[in-house]
Structure formats: structure tokens, C-alpha cells
């Protein structure tokens, strides 16, 4: 089967991968790079479990061709924390009971991190809209709202994270 060679930047690291032309970002991160935190829930863009960030924007990994993201910065759940330091969203999801089975959680966290990086103080309606492309069958979303509020508040009072994030963005070509 014919393969194409792609140069991808995933979680700040460069990768050269030989994949089918039809390979999606989801295929590459899970099956080639073995970053299994990104989940395959439907493979047709209906559940949001495969959400990753492409240049800071939430994208469905299963509907995005890997070839499309050459030259972009792809971030997966594995890059959300910095070393031992969990992202405020991660701590809040864990502490508020916003993750039950956890299968949809990485997708929600990536969607929410994109939301909060653009909209540090989202209204409840903005949160609801932002996560409406991600399905959760366990929580009824209720605990997620609490977790997102808590994380947003923490991120506003702890601006220390922001420079780190922006310096990483600068290295990777920036997010628009």
C-alpha cells in the first residue's frame, strides 16, 4: 500500500512518519506515535473523544487528515500537563467528579483548554456551546460545568502558567 512521508510536530516534538494518504491525525497519534490518550469513539466525527489541538484550536482527530497538519503544532492530552504539574482543568475534572469512565475525558479537556485559552471567563452558555460537540454518557455534564468554572478561576488567579504556555507556542510557531 502506498505511503506518504509526513513531517509532523506533535506535543512539541518533531516526527517523520510514513502513513497511508488517508491516515487521520487520530490514526497517527494513536497507531504510529502510540499516544493512546486520544480516544477513538466513533471515527466519524460524532462523539468528540478524539479532540486534539491544532494550532491551539480544538479539532476532531478522526476527521482531520494527517497530511493537513504538516507545519502545524498538534497537541494531545499527553501534553496538557507540564511534567508533574497538572493543568488546572485536569485537577478540577478529577476533583469535581467530572470524569467517570474517563473515555471522553481527554477530548473534553482539549476542547475546554482551547475554550479557556481564548475565553478566560466564559459564560455558562459559552461553556455549554463549546462542549456541545463532545458526548459524555456518564456525567450528564453537570460536574463538568463545576470543574470548568473552578479551572477557569484558578487560571485567572495563577497567571504564572500563561508565559510558559506562550513561550511554548512561540517555539512551535504560535497559535492564531
Amino acid at each position, binding site marked *: 500500500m502506498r505511503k506518504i512521508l509526513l513531517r509532523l510536530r506533535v506535543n512539541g516534538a518533531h516526527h517523520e512518519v510514513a502513513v497511508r494518504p488517508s491516515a487521520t491525525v487520530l490514526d497517527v497519534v494513536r497507531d504510529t506515535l502510540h499516544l493512546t490518550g486520544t480516544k477513538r469513539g466513533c471515527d466519524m466525527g460524532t462523539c468528540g473523544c478524539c479532540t486534539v489541538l491544532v494550532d491551539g484550536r480544538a479539532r476532531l482527530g478522526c476527521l482531520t487528515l494527517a497530511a493537513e497538519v504538516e507545519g502545524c503544532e498538534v497537541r494531545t492530552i499527553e501534553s496538557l500537563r507540564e511534567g508533574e504539574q497538572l493543568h488546572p482543568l485536569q485537577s478540577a475534572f*478529577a476533583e469535581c467528579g467530572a470524569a467517570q469512565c474517563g473515555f471522553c475525558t481527554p477530548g473534553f479537556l482539549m476542547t475546554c483548554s482551547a475554550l479557556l485559552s481564548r475565553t478566560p471567563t466564559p459564560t455558562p452558555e459559552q461553556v455549554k456551546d463549546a462542549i456541545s460537540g463532545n458526548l459524555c454518557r456518564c456525567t450528564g455534564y453537570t460536574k463538568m460545568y463545576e470543574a470548568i468554572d473552578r479551572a477557569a478561576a484558578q487560571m485567572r488567579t495563577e497567571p504564572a502558567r500563561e508565559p510558559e504556555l506562550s513561550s511554548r507556542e512561540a517555539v512551535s510557531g504560535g497559535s492564531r
Partner: protein
Amino acid sequence: MTDERKTNSFQIVGKNAALVDAWKKVTGEGLYTDDFRIAGLLTGKIVRSTRAHARIVKVDTSRALAMEGVRAVVTGLDPGAGVKFGVLPISKDETALAVDRVKYVGDCVAAVAADDEETATAAAESIEVEYEDLEPCLDPRKALQPQSVPLQTKSPDGTNLHKAVDQAFGDVEAAFQASAAVSGGRYEFAPVTHAFTEPHCVIAHFEPDGRLVVISAQQVPHYLHRAMAEVMQMPMHRIRIVRPMVGGGFGGKSDPFPHEMVAALLARRAGRPVKINFDREDVFLTNHGRHPTQYDIRIGMASDGAITGLDAKALIDGGAWGSFGVVTTYYNGVLSQGPYKIPNFRYSGRRVYTNKPPSGAMRGHGSVNARFAIESELDRLCEQLGLDPFDVRKKNALAPNSTTVNQFRITSTGLVECLDRTRAASQWDRKFRRMPYGRGIGLGCGFYISGSALPIHFDFHPDPKYGQIPQSTVHVKIDLDAGVTVHSLAADTGQGSDTMLAQCVAEPLGIPLSRVRVRTEDTDLAPIDLGSYSSRVTFMAGNAARNAAIAALEKLQIAAARLTGRPAQSFIARDEKLIDVTDPAVAVSFDAAVREAMRGTGALQATGSYQSPRLGGSFKGANAGLSPSYSFQAFVAEVEVDPETGAVRVTDVWAAHDCGRALNPVVVQGQIEGSVHMGLGQALSEDMRYLKGQVLNANLLDYKVFTSVDTPRIHSIVVESIDPEGPFGAKECGEGALAPVIPAVANAIYDAVGVRLTSVPMTAEKILAGIRKVGRGAKPKLPAGAAR
């Protein structure tokens, strides 16, 4: 040890705790079945039937076998592929692959294992199956008539009847004669499915010594273990089942499944590990969701609101296989025995086979249909008799320490508190029948089992003439690191049972959760627990865990006594110490006690178990629905209906659930909220559509699960009745909270626009048709008895 159920001085229990595996979930580090990376792993693909009912004339696998990269092909003729299995020993009627006949569109016909996904897919597509079509039976009403070819070869009367249940207590007809009002109707339930986010996935692998390892997203590893042994014709000790993290189950991963058997068959043939990972269509075709049902009901009421009798008749569409269906057939009747006193009762249930993907157990198994019908009819009776819906439910509420007419033992119940608190929280008296046309509020109640008192295998039956093996066993190991390892086969599927086990062990030992690690994933390590279904785990495995911890504590108390010269029984465990209650200045650290206790014996080991007491009557079917304890609920839903379009929006749900004691309140709330979410989907949007036996919407775009935008504010209200036998007073919280939301929404729609709907989902089309029938502006009147 004193009975600590009555105290409130807990250090761990009753406090919010993050799930012990939450950190793995939020970092993406948790391993679900599809995340395992195994050298030499092959991809398995199943060839599914395109016919609803047909004889298999020929399966031509020659092209697949000739393909490069194809390592194994199996059909129904493979050894083991035709062995009958099923979750219930009394109705084993499934096979790994269809042997001579396919019974639904999606039935497994053949399978391949290949080096990669593309080759496997191409190989599966190359397999040609020649069919000779048979007449499919798609309508459950026709299934009760003689069939040209019955679905099951053993059909005694030539029909597609699977299970018939007839029960009667008292005299329903006489009760109805003497009633002030009798109300009834036909309620219809569309098929709904679990729609967990993680598709089924399994990896099967024969180790070099010939031992079979099966890694599978399962709720009941033990039942899979048994079924796998039968199908593979291997002793159980030559099979190891591993249950990694599971991305939701809700009953949909609680059967042993054909794809699990197929993976093992392929692995045996290929001599390599094989993974079968479902796509979303596979998940819908595997189904085992809630049974589509036609439910006829009549309820009688005296003028003072007392329920006089209940008469119910259910026609239950089982699809192609038995699954949990015998239980379903009973539950549709017997689970209407609560939460109210029903002095006269009659039930007739028929489960039939049809040529559709099998139905099975789904959250709230067996209770959901009756609840919608009963709670709707109660509101109609209240209206006819001018009574208040809350008053009537309170009047009929089962009392604590009472017995139902079919001999269910009721111990704790918080129903009255649930009613009082939802009434207040929802500001019911300001709203009911008093809001403008188009806005409405409705009430629904419920109850559910905390596990089945009688297990489905006789090995675990408490009667001396059977096995008497406890339904839950938990082992606790404490070694020199003074960490506590908990072993159990209770399956954490996201509901938080690992955390519950850790809490039930940590509390008696007086240690923080950080000292406890829970290992529940492996049949090699864990003593048998019957698994995560029927809302049994907190009650049964929780009790077993607590008992194991108490047994371990006794060893530590003896060690503390040796170190201090004080009597062993004077020591309590608290704050990581063993403290002499008679003189708190005398204390031994947990670590020192462990070290001393290990003298001469090594690591401490302790066992705890749970076996339900013997309960119930001796009539046929007396065991069905028996539980050591029951949960209770009262829910209120508030809705807005657009009279132009019929579209309904649920704005709020107040959900009061009596869970005995909330071991981990945030988790209890999460279970309530998730149940409400799932119930709302069944109430308003979820519906597996069929055309000639073909599922039309086998994906999450066309099968409408509630998104964040659809889901209302959910106000969970945790009611604690402190159960006398539950661990620390706890009982179930995972399933009972689903059923009440459906009638609460239906009753709210009635309040809003005067339209009484009797079939789910309650779509805009149905509501609009109802509005046209009753006329716009038809706001119901406040019953005289409901005026406040």
C-alpha cells in the same frame, strides 16, 4: 466491633473523594483495551449478516485465505464456534458465529485476522456468503403466532415465545370493582441502547504454554470467564480474563459476547494475539439495549388515594437471543411492587424472539417501563379524584421494615424524605398547574434493587443444597510497606467502584485512601465477585471489603496489644494509628502495628465476603426482584413546550435519591446526574429505528444522545436512609435514578399543554399531534386536593 452504621464519625466514608483512578483518566494514561500495544498483534474483523433471517448455504472464505497478510479465518464450523452460551444458564442460545442460520442483520457469520486493519477489512469483504432467505419475524405481536421457522429450534409450540411469566396476588378484579376510580392504558417503548463512548474491544492471546489471556471491556469478567471456558472447551484455570479501564457499560458490557469468543478462536487459529475493536455500527448491531416493549396497565384507587390494585401486561421484544431476557420478563412485573403498597397485583409478561439485534440489560433494567406507566396513571387518577400527586404518593409509600404482597423485604426507605425535599426544592406548590400555558412541572417516583439476592448461578446460591459461595469476596493484603492492597473482581466501569472499595477498606483501618491500592482487573489476582450489574457492587462488594478490612484490623489490634500490653479489643484504628480508647495517650502507628503483626507470619492477608440473606417466598418466580435492600427516588421535571412546533425543552430536574448512605457524595451525585441524562434521552430523543430488520441509525449522529445543549440543570438531592445491612448504611445509586425521570417529564408535558403521551420517545411530532387533538390553551386544572 460496634455497629458503626449508626455513627457519623467517619474519616473516609461520607467524604467527597476523587476517584482513585481519576488521575489516569485526566492525563490520558489510563489503559482501555484498545490502548494495549502488544507485539505481533493481529487485527480481527467480523463478517456480519446482511439478512434478517436466512439459512447459510455456503461461506466461501477462499479469497480471504489466499490474501497476503491474512493469518486466520473462522466460520461457524470451527470447533467451539457453534457452542451455545449466554449470560443466564437457563437460556443459553447464543453462538460465537452463526452455524447454519443467521437471525438478524448484524449476526456474526465469519471472521478474519490479518496483519493490519486494511488487510483485515479487505479480507472480510472478500468472504462471500450465500443465503437462502427465510421469513423474518420483526413484529413482536406476530411472534406469538406459529412461525414457519421459529427463531429457536427448541420452541415448544412453534412460536417465537421465549419466556412467559404469570403472577397474581390478591384479587385485582374485585379490587377494581371496589375502587373509586380505575385508570389504564397502553404504554409503548422504542428500543434504546447504552451508547457508551468506548466501543467494545477485546484482545485474545494464547501464551506460549497454551494458556488463554482475554483482555476485554467487560462489566462481568466472571461470567465471561465461564462462557469462554465452555466455548473454547478449556478449563477455567487455563483462561485468564483481564478487565482494563472500561469506557462505560450501563449494562451493555454485561453479557459474554460473540466477538470475545471470536477473538479467542482467531487467536488459536493464528497462533498470535488478535484484537477486535468495534466501530460504532458494530456497537449498535451488538446492542443488548433496553427491550422495546408494549406495556398495558390498569391501576385502581380508593377515594382517599390508596392504591387498590395493579394489573399489568407486557409484550417484550427480545431480538434474536435470550441474554438477560428471562430476568427482564420477571422484572417488568415484579419491579412494579414498589415504591408503593400494592395490595392486589396481577402480571402477565411475554418475551418473544424477533429477527433483530438482541435486547438485554440496560441501566434500570426491567424497572423503566413499569415506572413510566404507573407514574403516569397515578397522575391521571389524582386528576380524576381531585387529589394531590405528592400526597397520594406519600400515602402509598412502602413503610420501612415492611413486606410487599410478593414478599419483598423492605428495610430502609427514604421515599417520604425524597418527596418532601423535591417538593420544596422545585417550588412545586407555586408551579403545579399554575404556570402559564406551555410551561409545566411533573413528578415521578421509583425504586430499585441493590443487587439480586439470588445469583444466576447455583454455585453462589445461599441454600445448603447449592454452592453457597459468597456473591462477593474481597482479599486484603498488607505487607512491609504498610500499604493495603485490595483484590476483588468487582468491575470498575467508570462508576467508581474501585474508589468505593478503597473507602470501605480505609475506614475500618483508619488510613487515608493514599495507602490503599485496588486491584480488580485480573481473574488471576482477584477473588470472584459477580461483577457490575443489577446495582449490586456497593452493597455486596462494599460489605465484603469492609468485612475484609475488619478481619485485617483484628490482626493489627492483636499486634498493638503485644506492643503495649493493653487488651487487643481496646484499640481502634484512626489517623493511621491504633489508639487505645481507654487511654488515647497509648497509640501504635499503623506501620509499627503492621511490622509487629508480620512477625513470624509475613504479609497480612484477610478475607471478607458477602452473601445475601435468604429472602422471599416459595412460589414460582419468588426469587425475581429480591434484593437485600432497595433504593427510592422522587424526581420533579420542569419543561417548556413550544405549542407551535411541539418541541419540548426540559429546563430543570430535581432528583432526590435515597442511597442509604452516600459513601462518596460527589460520586453519588454523578450517578444521579448520569442516570437523569440517560433517562431524558429515552424520554425525548433516543430511538433505534429499523427498516425490515436493518438498524437505520447505527451511529451517534442519527441516534440522538443528549448533548450539553440538550441537558437541563440537574439538581441532585442525596437522601440517606442509612440501610441496616448496607456497608456503612449504603445501598445502590447507579440505576434507580434513571426510571423516574421519564414519567416526571411526561407529567410535566401534560401540565404544560394538557397532552398525555404514552409512548417514548416523546417527540415534537407526537406532542404537536396531541396539542392539535386537545386544542391549544388546554391547561389542566389544579385538582382540589392539590390546592395549597
